[in-house]
Every structure is written in C-alpha cells, then in structure tokens.
C-alpha cells in the first residue's frame, strides 16, 4: 500500500513541481503588480483628490463586490473579443491580468485604511513644521502606516495564492490543473492526489503567514515597549 503511494508520488512529483512553479510564478506576479497598482490607488483614495478618488472607489467596489471567477471570465472571454487589438491576449496573459487586478483592489483598501489610521495629529504636526503634502506622507505617514499593513496584507497574499487554483478553469497549468490531469492518469488515487496538492499549497502558504508574524513583531517593536 505504502509502496503504491510512494510510486504514485515519485512519478507525479516532477509534473506537480511544474504546476507549483506556475502557481508560484502567477501568484508572485499578481502580488507584485497588484501591490504596486493597489498602493498607488490606495494613496490616491486616502487623499481625497477630486474625480480620481471617486473613480478608483468605483474600481475597488466593483472588483471586491463580484466573484473572482466572473472577473476571470470577463478577462478571458469578453475582453479579447471586443475587437480592441491590445486586449486580444492569450489565456495566460488574461489570467495574470485578472489576478493582478483582483489583488490590487484588496491592497488598495488596506493601504487606504492604514493611511487613515495614522493619527491626524501626526500629519498636522508635520504640516505645522512646514512639510509639504509629499514630505508629510513620505516621512511621517507612510512609515507609520506600513506597520499597520503587515497583518492584513499577509492574509490577502495567502488568499491570492489560494485563488490561483481558480485559474485551472481557463487552462493554466498551475498546481490544481496539473493535479486534475494526474487524476486522469491515476483515477483511483483521487483522494491521495488532492491531499498531496493541498499539502503543497500549505507548504507555500504557511511560511508566508510565519513571515508575516515575524515581520509584524519586528516592525512593531518600537511601539510595544512602554514604560508607563
């Protein structure tokens, strides 16, 4: 019995490894690109800039208020068929763009909330010292907001990693998809193979969560020391 599972595992491992690499790659791209876009949008949203703030608000609410699967179908089926040439992308690009955009909506709300959670007096003191808006944000508000983003950001990142499984429905050869193909080869071992896949996802997500806890404690150090 054990021998059987061992042989299934060893024969599938290179195949699943390929799937994991694709999962890793697409999640990394979505997290990096999505965080950059999200950070920009979040900063604008926290600043009440006419027109832009409202426009980005719409962007965020639509993305957060609809299922990712539906968004993926829009990027995969609808946009390439609009006849606009630069939108006629292949399925892999569609998946990468969809996940990055989805990520950006969550990151934007975290950044905005963190900026708004920095006490008003901090920015007011910076203003009174003669700093302009950019200097206030850069030297006073952002460093303090950054600490607040670590816990929610790590849960979004883990959520995004897990969401990559949905990309299997549009034929991206990521971990879940590779697992489903494997099941065609070993139909009787469906439970074992799904278990194996779940374990690989866990091996990816768990260090992210641990890292977040470590980072949270590190950046929080200065504030937790309290002599009163």
């Amino acid at each position, binding site marked *: 019995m054990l021998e059987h599972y061992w042989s299934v595992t060893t024969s599938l491992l290179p195949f699943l490894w390929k799937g994991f690499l694709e999962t890793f790659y697409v999640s990394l791209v979505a997290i990096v690109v999505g965080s950059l876009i999200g950070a920009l949008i979040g900063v604008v949203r926290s600043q009440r800039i006419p027109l832009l703030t409202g426009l980005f608000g719409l962007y965020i609410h639509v993305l957060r208020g609809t299922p990712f699967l539906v968004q993926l179908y829009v990027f995969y089926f609808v946009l390439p068929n609009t006849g606009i040439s630069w939108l006629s992308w292949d399925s892999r690009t569609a998946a990468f763009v969809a996940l990055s955009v989805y990520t950006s909506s969550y990151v934007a709300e975290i950044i905005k909330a963190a900026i708004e959670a920095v*006490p008003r*007096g*901090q920015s*007011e*003191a*910076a*203003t*009174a*010292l*003669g*700093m*302009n808006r950019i*200097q206030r944000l850069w*030297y*006073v508000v952002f*460093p*303090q907001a950054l*600490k607040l983003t670590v816990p929610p950001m790590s849960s979004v990142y883990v959520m995004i990693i897990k969401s990559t499984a949905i990309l299997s429905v549009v034929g991206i050869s990521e971990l879940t998809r590779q697992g489903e193909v494997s099941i065609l080869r070993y139909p009787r071992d469906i439970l074992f193979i799904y278990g194996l896949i779940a374990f690989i996802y866990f091996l990816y997500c768990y260090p992210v969560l641990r890292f977040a806890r470590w980072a949270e404690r590190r950046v929080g150090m*200065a*504030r937790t*020391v*309290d*002599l*009163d």
Partner: protein
Amino acid sequence: MFANPIVSVEHISKTFRSAHGRSAHRALDDISLTLEKGEVLVIIGPSGSGKSTLLRTLNALESFDSGRIMVDGVSLADRSTDLNRLRAEIGMVFQNFNLFQHKTALENVVLPQIVVRKRSRSEALSRAQSLLEKVGIADRANHYSSQLSGGQQQRVAIARALAMDPKIMLFDEATSALDPEMVGGILDLMRGLAAEGMTMAVVTHEMGFAREVADRIIFMDAGRIVEEGTPGSFFTSPSHERTRAFLDQIL
C-alpha cells in the same frame, strides 16, 4: 511700546458647517488683533470659545471665511503665498504633543531640520542635541514617544519646534494634557522663551502664567474677543460682566 506687528489679524470670521449644511457654528466672529515682535499674547476663554481655532488660523492649519491675516509681511489668504514655507517660520506646540511615533526623541528634532531646512545630518544632529539639552531631556534622546511621559514628550515637541528657528511660537493648550506635577516644568520653559524675546501666542488655562508672563491678554467667548488688556488691568478690573463671571469661575 511696540511698533512692528509681525502678525495682524483683520476682521476674520469662520463658520463650521456640518456635512450637509444643516447646522452651522460660528467659531470666529469678526476677530481683529495684532502681535508685535517679542510680545507674549495670552488667549483665554471657556472651551468652545474659538481660542484654539483662532491660534490655528495663524499658521493656516485652519482656514477662515472672510477677513485678512498678515504674518511676517505676507497674506495667508493670498493664493501666491507658499504656506509651507511660512509655517516653517512659525513653531507650534500641541496639547497632545504629536511627536512622530516612529522616531526617537532625537530623530523627531532632526527630521524636520533635514527635510524642511535642508540642513546636513551632522548639523541637524548637533542642533538637536543642544536643544534637547536646553529643554532638559538630553538623557532621553534615544527614547520613542511611547517610552516618555507627557511632560517629557512636550519638552521634545518644544525642542522640535525651536529647531526650525521660528520667528513666532504658538502654544495650543500645551499643558492641558499633562499630569499636574509636569505642568510647572513646561511653563518654566515657556517663561524662559519669553524672557529670551520670543514672539509667542499662547492659548492656556494657566492664569498664574498669564498674569506673570503675558504682555497682553485676550478673553474670548462664543467666537468673539470680549476683552483685551494688560494682565494688570485684566485681572484686577475686568470691564465686562462675561470676563468677571469667567474669572470668578476659575480663580
């Protein structure tokens, strides 16, 4: 005695409105005053009288609806005025200190010098160190604000404001959030600044300080200046009933 106003406020008014304009509160009602170089002006009044709002209009932390404010020769309402540059010349000390929480005491004093005054780090550091010594907190230079008592935080905040070489210092109830035994030390610092000739506008409830240090006292109520005078005349023979009632309450 004075001939050179560094601040002049002419007939300013300000109304706070709720989000949908359903209610309005007249915070400042036709306020006029001047502040001369080297003068210490103390503003007193009941809470909600507009004294903090008035102080905050002087460095444009608060806008006003009508009237004119001239500070150091420029008009605050003028669109061409660089408010950030002007604010660098006006130090402000807050009731809640507002030290930058992610910086040590020393770095709180260093940062604005580098960012706003464009000083080198070594110059900013030596200035910061000597100012922390001056306010009596040099031994806590490497502590964060969460590790300092209220009185210690306020000392750092005063050093931070002084590091910009301000022409005017504004104090917005600088001792109101302090434990009673901390108040005296901060008032001593303010007294010292006044003695050095610093131009100061001070919102406070400390009548002893007002009587002793002020060149002029303004009493505000409901957004208006009710009475203005020297400490001598103000405390011994207030001319308005409202002033007398207020002084009876707190003295």
